[in-house]
């Protein structure tokens, strides 16, 4: 089974702040780490590889510094990594990112399964998985909380909606995005950390992939961010409920919904 895991590098949790003067994100000095949900996707891929054999290929789009995250994935025991990196790809929104990743997956070729984390912890969009699936014309399971290999080319995944849980069967090739409930990602072991530096990290640019310049980077991104700011800090505003217990509860339940 040839599995591609899409990963994203994100700033270390809770370290991102807004400069109160300029209203810009303060990014300097923040260590990039692999998006936590993507670790669940890598773990799922490694377990499927243990079951079915094959290869786990990490795929990311971003600046050269994203090799840090790819290396982390390799140290979890993935086989190789691909980074799509070029100035022309900068400023991509989810649509342009999804297009670029889909093209890279086509270039990798003969991919049976694409796994991604349910969303990134920085942008919180969760859109890239379904966009990649749409571009590749593949079936999708989003927010999977279990994945089981039913046969060489069928997977049954569970997806929890608000009130129900679905069993979804897909025929590979397919795209699956995973929740953290799916598994507990393994640690990078000391030996694997050392060996990860012997594994291949291939870097592709937009020309290597023959990307349409109109569909990548800023040009290929329909959305624009017009402003970035810190949310208003709300302390808890205490509402005092009526003294009659029933009235209190009725008012409470009303306001809670």
């Amino acid at each position: 089974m040839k599995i591609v895991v899409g990963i994203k590098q994100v700033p270390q949790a809770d370290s991102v702040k807004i400069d109160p003067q300029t209203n810009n994100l303060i990014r300097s000095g923040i260590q990039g780490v692999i998006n936590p949900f993507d670790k669940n996707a890598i773990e799922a891929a490694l377990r499927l590889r243990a079951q079915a054999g094959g290869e786990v290929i990490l795929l990311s789009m971003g600046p050269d510094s994203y090799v840090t995250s790819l290396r982390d994935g390799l140290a979890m025991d993935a086989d190789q990594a691909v980074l799509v990196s070029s100035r022309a790809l900068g400023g991509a929104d989810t649509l342009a990112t999804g297009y670029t990743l889909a093209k890279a997956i086509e270039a990798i070729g003969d991919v049976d399964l694409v796994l991604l984390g349910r969303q990134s912890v920085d942008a919180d969009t969760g859109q890239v998985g379904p966009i990649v699936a749409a571009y590749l014309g593949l079936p999708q399971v989003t927010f999977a909380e279990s994945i089981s290999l039913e046969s060489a080319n069928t997977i049954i995944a569970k997806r929890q909606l608000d009130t129900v849980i679905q069993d979804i069967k897909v025929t590979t090739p397919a795209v699956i995005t995973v929740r953290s409930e799916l598994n507990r990602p393994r640690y990078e072991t000391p030996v694997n950390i050392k060996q990860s530096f012997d594994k291949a990290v291939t870097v592709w640019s937009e020309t290597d992939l023959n990307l349409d310049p109109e569909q990548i980077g800023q040009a290929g991104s329909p959305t624009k961010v017009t402003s970035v700011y810190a949310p208003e800090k709300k302390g808890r505003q205490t509402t005092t409920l009526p003294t009659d217990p029933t009235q209190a509860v009725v008012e409470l339940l009303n306001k809670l919904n």
Partner: protein
Amino acid sequence: MTVIEDQNRMLIQMVKEFTANELAPLDMEIDQKGDYPAGLFQRVIDNGLLKITLPSQYGGAGFDYTAAADALNKMAIGNASMAVTLEGHFKTIEQFTKYGQPSLNDKYLPSAGHRIFAFSMTEPSGGSNPKGISTRAVKQGDNWVITGDKIMITNGGLAEVYCILSKTEDDQMAVFVVDKDMPGFQFGKREDFIGLRGTPVGEVVLDHVVVPADHLLGKVGQGLEIGDNAHADARVLMGAILAGIIEHELGIAINYSKERKALTTPLYQLQVIQEKIADIAIARQNTRALYQKGAQQKVANQLYAETAAMAKSYGSRAAVRSGDEALQVLGGYGYSREYPVEHLIRDARAMELAEGTIEKMNLEITNAEIAK
């Protein structure tokens, strides 16, 4: 960043994550139970932590001593016992790679990724003063026959391979490697210590254990040198562990003094509290500087025994005193067994004794300074 720096950063991150998830939540339980919970040590093995310093030709990761010391420093912030267990293993591996014969290393070191190796000097008749050693090694054909009683061995009972400081018939000192599966090998009693309660410290009794000639580390007569070398290697790592304990103490004091208020003022805004927090922070920094210097000197093939002795001498005192100050910041809660400060003091106290007492450290430091 160089590749090595990148690899070291990844190792530290891995150890931090492992510690946060697997060790720190059990820190109190380990102290209270006086042992590692079932399965914990297996997780340490399964995640390759015994292989940090083991050279790659034996299936290890081959990280250098600075990386290993930094790793144990991070681990000790969450749980000092497990860090000491690894310290005992790492320092022993160092003696194999430095003094072991190739045939012995080929036979034993590949198993060091899943079996703990230990180094033992102390005997019931005396402290770690090797002159009073009564364990005997008698040459018999190509083999050596070893008989004796070793106590207070770090990881005694948990470890499977032991380096034994012995005297030969001609009263020379030598170190031999014995395996727990050899006939005549027996475990004795485990100590009931007041600190580092997860780390097993125990006794090994050898009754005519026969080992092949290549189980001799170095040469006959090199026993004391190897013992000193093992001490220095241990003390660098203990300095790292002590810096970790102080870091833990500092974290507790800071968190508490931010949350707890005297009337409306958070404690940390009070000068008396600031004095304590600053003292602890300085102690942390000094201990860190000492152990890192020792590790760097070792990696650079410079003399490091004196710095190692300083790291442990200074660090152990500083960690006990810092624990006491952190306890005072927490007031009555600090004195409660429900909070970890009191056990950190007990943990740190162990290192004023282990691998040579503070007095022995200070003697060695003084001798080294006078000789300069």
